[in-house]
């Protein structure tokens, strides 16, 4: 049996609560992250991602408290991100029980940071997230939660991320995020071809067929979504049975 494709709910955290924006702007409260995380574990989520978008100085201490509690409550792996821009900040998260950390803007601002993290903690716990938008022909990389354009092109940046020692890439298409029209198949195919690491697809999930499509048509290792899981529009247990019936290798417990 081959390795299972991963279904990954993503929880955006602000002031220790789960929120979800659509198109990176509007925010809605989607509840207590610990309760939501426990529900996802029971429903069969393979992994969880927590992105802290708290914009105050309290962020890192709130986040490390949350990580401590998550590590006590969960027996599946979880990844934490949001403003991690130093070895010390990454160490704190891993020490408190996070399995992986995810960075985005900090990597664009200082690509050497990926190498530093990888040398310190090993590539297996370093995920780099890429937010990109298609403008004319090129996929352009954005930072700061999709607010700032960079000069980087998606595939070149992805190759650099892998060369610098990251263990995984989480790709969000800003054109697709929040639309519920399906994942960005074309750039995902290109990423899978260009990178030797696992690729996680994000942005655009609206139906269970979208998950089938992304696993069938691209060789991504996992698919991530937020609101469709938070509001139970696509419950995880039936989603995984559906994928399993359609010959996508998923973990059924």
């Amino acid at each position, binding site marked *: 049996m081959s390795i*299972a494709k991963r279904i990954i709910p993503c929880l955006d955290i602000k002031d220790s609560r789960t929120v979800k924006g659509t198109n990176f702007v509007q925010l809605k409260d989607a509840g207590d992250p610990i309760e939501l995380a426990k529900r996802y574990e029971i429903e069969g989520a393979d992994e969880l991602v927590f992105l802290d978008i708290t914009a105050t100085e309290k962020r890192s201490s709130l986040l490390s408290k949350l990580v401590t509690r998550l590590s006590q409550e969960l027996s599946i792996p979880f990844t934490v991100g949001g403003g991690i821009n130093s070895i010390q900040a990454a160490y704190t998260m891993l020490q408190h029980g996070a*399995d992986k950390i995810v960075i985005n803007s900090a990597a664009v601002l200082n690509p050497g940071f990926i190498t530093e993290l990888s040398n310190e903690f090993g590539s297996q716990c370093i995920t780099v997230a890429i937010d990109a938008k298609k403008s004319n022909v090129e996929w352009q990389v954005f930072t700061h939660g999709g607010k700032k354009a960079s000069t980087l092109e998606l595939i070149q940046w992805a190759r650099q991320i892998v060369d610098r020692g990251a263990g995984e890439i989480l790709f969000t298409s800003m054109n697709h995020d929040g639309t519920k029209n399906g994942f960005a198949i074309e750039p995902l195919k290109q990423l899978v071809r260009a990178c030797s690491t696992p690729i996680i697809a994000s942005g655009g999930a609206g139906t269970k067929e979208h998950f089938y499509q992304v696993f069938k048509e691209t060789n991504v290792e996992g698919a991530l979504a937020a609101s469709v899981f938070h509001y139970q529009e696509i419950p995880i247990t039936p989603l995984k049975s559906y994928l399993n019936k359609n010959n996508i290798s998923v973990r059924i417990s």
Partner: protein
Amino acid sequence: MNIGIIDYGAGNTMSVINALKRLEQNYFVSDQPTKLEQADKLILPGVGNAQKAMLQLRKKNLDDYLKAINKQVLGICLGMQLLTEYTEEQNTDCLQIIAARCRRFNQDQKVPKIGWNTVQFEDTPLFKNIPKSSYFYFVHSYFVPLDKSTIASTNYGTQYSAAIRKDLFYGVQFHPEKSGKAGLKLIKNFIEL
């Protein structure tokens, strides 16, 4: 029963602690051979770089202690690989307790391997009452090929060791502390061996 967790800076120590707490198991964490000697069994956790890990173990004289030990030890992930002779990861000599050598995954596989995979095993006490072909969570770039020490296997391009054993030493390549119910059961089985 008291479990000693060997502290040498491994990344998953907290997760192992939390798994033992969930099992309501007494435990302590230490890097001192004299203290660890008071434990009934030991867990060698492991996430990170093999060469750094071996340096830490040597610095704390934990390498000689482990080689001479007379109690059951469970190595997890990198902790399992450290029990072998050698790993291709930066050409590192390991503890040489189990005669196996760790290799890097083939280039046509995505590396690191990250995710859940089924594990195949025959009747063996470490996997007692765990359903056949249960899923466990793996994160690694190097692997132990099938060997006489293999007690469970899994697949990633090639069939390889998911668990190994020699005498009192057990090693699992996956993370039982992150593998849901099956993983907790495996830790419980190790405690009850």
